[in-house]
């Protein structure tokens, strides 16, 4: 995962070349805009102004329209995300099984509101409408890891695990998968 918050994005950022390679051949195909934005977000972690401008210019789509598309879809972010984006599923199944309480606990545990990033840049908090793992409701994802049957009481432990993982990664240590097999009781 790349962290774009630490350094600004300059015009000769190598990720632009990667993005250009992806856009090669589809320039002028306005239907490809959403795919291009997915790629750009994957490369940069989010879609800052300069990246959207670059996409607009390459695809020959007005910046106002690119921005309109970016702000329409939930998965696109114009703000940097945390190293571990925390996503709380607020689908119906999760809601009736207490996802709102899990979310409340996450907010207090992380000290941030939805759409915000913790001061250390580790976590950002988002909600989503359904990831389709309704049988395991309530479900949250931390980074790429999906956790099922989460209660508010599990929250401190899951957050601590992610912190440990981040610390371990910082030390260059071999990192085990977060809570493999241990968090579904």
């Amino acid at each position, binding site marked *: 995962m790349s962290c774009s918050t630490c350094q600004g994005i300059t015009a000769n950022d190598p990720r632009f070349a990667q993005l250009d390679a992806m856009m090669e051949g589809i320039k002028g195909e306005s239907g490809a805009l959403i795919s291009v934005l997915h790629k750009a977000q994957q490369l940069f972690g989010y879609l800052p102004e300069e990246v959207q401008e670059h996409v607009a210019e390459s695809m020959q789509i007005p910046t106002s329209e690119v921005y309109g598309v970016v702000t329409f879809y939930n998965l696109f972010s114009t703000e940097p995300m945390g190293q571990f984006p925390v996503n709380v599923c607020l689908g119906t199944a999760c809601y009736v099984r207490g996802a709102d309480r899990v979310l409340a606990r996450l907010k207090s545990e992380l000290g941030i509101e939805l759409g915000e990033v913790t001061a250390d840049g580790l976590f950002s908090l988002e909600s989503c409408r359904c*990831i389709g793992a309704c049988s395991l409701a309530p479900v949250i994802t931390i980074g790429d890891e999906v956790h099922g049957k989460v209660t508010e009481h599990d929250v401190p432990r899951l957050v601590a695990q992610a912190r440990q993982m981040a610390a371990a990664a910082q030390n260059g240590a071999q990192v085990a998968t977060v809570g493999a097999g241990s968090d579904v009781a």
Partner: protein
Amino acid sequence: MIPAPALKRLESPADLELLRAQGAPALALRQAEAAPLGEAGEIHVLVCGDTGCRANKCLPTRQALEQSVATHGLAGRVKVVQVGCFGFCRVGPVVVVEPGGTFYCEVRPKDVPEIVLEHIMGGRPVKRLLYAPTPNERGQYETRQHIPFYQRQYRSVLRNCGLIDPENVVEAVGSGRYFALAKALTELTPDQVVDELKQSGLRGRGGAGFPTGKKWEMAKATPGDVKYVICNADEGDPGAFMDRSVLEGDPHAVLEAMTIAGYAIGAQQGYIYVRAEYPLAVQRLQLAIAQARSLGLLGSDILGTGFSFDLDIRLGAGAFVCGEETALIESIEGKRGQPRTKPPFPSTAGLWDKPTLNNNVETYANVGDIILKGADWYRSVGTEKSPGTKVFALAGQIVNTGLVEVPMGTPLREIIFGMGGGVPKGKAFKAAQIGGPSGGCIPTHLLDTPVEFDSLPPLGAMMGSGGLIVMDETSCMVDVAKYFLKFIQDESCGKCPPCRIGTKRMLEILERITQGKGTLADIDDLERLSRGIRAGSLCGLGNSAPNPVLSTLRYFRDEYVAHVVEHRCPAGRCTALTEYRIDPLRCKGCAVCARNCPVDAISGEVKSPFHIDPALCIKCGACSDVCKFDAVIH
């Protein structure tokens, strides 16, 4: 991901038959009745591996199985196969040993050595890992056929889920995939394909149940050199995940059906619009498309018949409204997913203004077997007006969460209590929410309603995509209505004022009511807004946005009135109207509540009744959850 094997292009239906011969033995083994345990024969160990199971940590189980099989030198004889969803997600990770179909539940890596040593090598099933609804029923339910969750199902759309390796096209062909395509291309005219579909009575599984054959006929009838076929895999209804399971468990079923559709209506290009929230489904679709292309099942001159058709994936980006077909089309065009007015319908002017056919995943998953086995076969299941089966996702306050596939017309009671096992923890059933944010709540007294397309709308609900969320006595129906309105508000595209502003006003009223600040006039306003939003909104999302409010008002009006008149939430869910206190007669003074209170609002002496300070209490309910003596009252 398993790399696409070097697949030789199939030049004719005969080549397809040869490929089936390669895949068929594995499937025969997995479907065999007899259980030659402990013999020298081949054994397949099936492990579920879709998104739900992965959240259930099935991967370490699979890795342990593979490792154990290798350690014991069984690699030649025992194959560990990752399959799609078994449907019984509650007991996942599931491991099935074939032949014989021994069904193991909640298998963790630590359980794996026992399965390998005892069952695979010793021929003795591991009883403690078999399904058991109660501890003293251990050992009675050895295979799926024995388990009530499966007994009443009719698995047609899901027949390959939990059977084949979705990443192995040879197994898909072995199971019969692409033979309907071969039949259509070589034996049927496009008209005959459409006619078969019309005869079958198949109706769209994504929402209102529009007759699929009629849709195909309209797209076919519109003249045009360029037409498109779209698969709506933007499974939007929260609580519904059958489309994801089909894509992850049997992706070729969708590819085949779309190609048949291309042939029938005269299209050369298709798009699968899939949610980006489903990365595994996307991955498996990409692999399946690559495999189908190298086999010549997609691309030019399919099976040597001269027919050409190709598919691309388009990713959604998180917008519920894109499940609406015209919004989906806008999104494929790279725009904001805002619905267009209809008419013109997509069958006349859809993607890039060309005639476009759009069906959802489950609908397509029915097509192959209809073409192969005929309309009469299809009509033999289900009801007169709603033939075939329907997959339901069971979620919420229900014991057996998971996916079930039943004949249309099966009563709700059977689904929820028969297969679903009813409501957990001895709580009382209150309502089943069906049809997602556009649907409605079905109360207890209507549970015997047979579920089909036309039986639900008179009750104020709709089939939708088949999400079935069970609510028990702890759910407040005003809160549920508020939840859905909040959802709709978040997902409204904003194009038309009734939906953009109207649902906001409804949400504001519901917020007032759940805070005890509502009035009876607010309830009248809700009804007036509902009428206007339903009549005035541009698309289906807005038209049906008031449904959760109307249906809860219809069956649970007393709960609204209690909030408004008595400032009371009967279910105790609405925090503003709830006060937590400890019953001194029940409290044993164990202090568990105090330890779990996040704000230190509970105090007391051990072994004497504790006390909650209402000024500090944030009404999170943690104390109530942990109290073993039901001493916390709210």
